[in-house]
């Protein structure tokens, strides 16, 4: 069956079509999480920001004047909500796996090790600028192409490549001591 375009899904979601909104969530929850994590730097808060952003987007779907560009519009909401979240609350100390979504999570020992690894990665990512973090996560974690990132973040493709190049270079230095931690089980 033909995959519906973002514009079609937005139009149907405006009329309350739950499956269409659900498909938009499925498409953009992970990229949104990457954006939120780039801004906030903590899993729990990033999850909150993404959920909040989907609620805001649903309430303001009429403001998305060009439904074909839903991705860019929505990711801007995510970025703004994430920044608001930082301003609004003082971040809790220590990272936490989201309780509600992590029922089938690893054992406490593995979770601790994973949290440590994530903390190290996050520290490395924090050395990058916000836009570099967004681009490297969207590219390396979500698998978006340069052109997709450029279109959805609203910047020239050359700028995306440049940011990605410098982000990788910086991460190469920062993560050089992490070879033994690759793909923890």
């Amino acid at each position: 069956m033909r995959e519906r375009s973002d514009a079609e899904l937005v139009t149907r979601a405006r009329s309350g079509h739950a499956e269409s909104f659900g498909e938009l969530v499925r498409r953009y929850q992970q990229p949104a999480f990457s954006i939120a994590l780039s801004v906030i730097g903590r899993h729990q808060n990033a999850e909150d920001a993404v959920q909040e952003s989907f609620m805001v987007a649903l309430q303001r779907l009429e403001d998305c004047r060009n439904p074909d560009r839903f991705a860019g519009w929505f990711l801007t909401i995510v970025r703004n909500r994430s920044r608001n979240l930082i301003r609004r609350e003082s971040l809790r100390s220590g990272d936490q796996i989201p309780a509600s979504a992590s029922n089938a999570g690893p054992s406490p020992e593995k979770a601790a090790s994973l949290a440590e690894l994530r903390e190290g990665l996050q520290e490395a990512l924090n050395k990058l600028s916000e836009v570099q973090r967004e681009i490297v996560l969207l590219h390396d974690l979500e698998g978006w192409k340069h052109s997709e990132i450029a279109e959805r973040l609203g910047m020239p493709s050359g700028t995306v490549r440049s940011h990605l190049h410098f982000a990788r270079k910086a991460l190469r230095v920062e993560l050089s001591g992490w070879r033994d931690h690759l793909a923890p089980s």
Partner: protein
Amino acid sequence: MKNERRVALLRVLDPAHENPGYWERFRAEIMERAAFELARRRELARESVELVLSGWSRSLIPVALAAAVIAAILVSSEAVRDPGAGVPLVLEDVLATDISDEVLETAITGEAHASPVAFMAFVEGNRP
């Protein structure tokens, strides 16, 4: 560090890395929170359709009624103004009625003879 290794390391940041089904549950939570707003939008969309239809009927029915009334008035007034409209005059009928010989002679020999219309007008005008 090669790209593949960096990508593998970054995957640790994905909550689903050690937690299969994380994103399905995450999506389900969002859909649960969105249920009220989606229901509100469905209701709004339903009301909008009804509003459009009732809007049409509100304007369409009076206009149709007015048109029907106007048409009825026009037809009836036309009938009153010219009750014989549409009934052709037949020359034989005119001649068969009670016309005096003088009138008939004058009609046949005079100017009225020039055309059937003039003839009939003359005869009708001189009917006793």
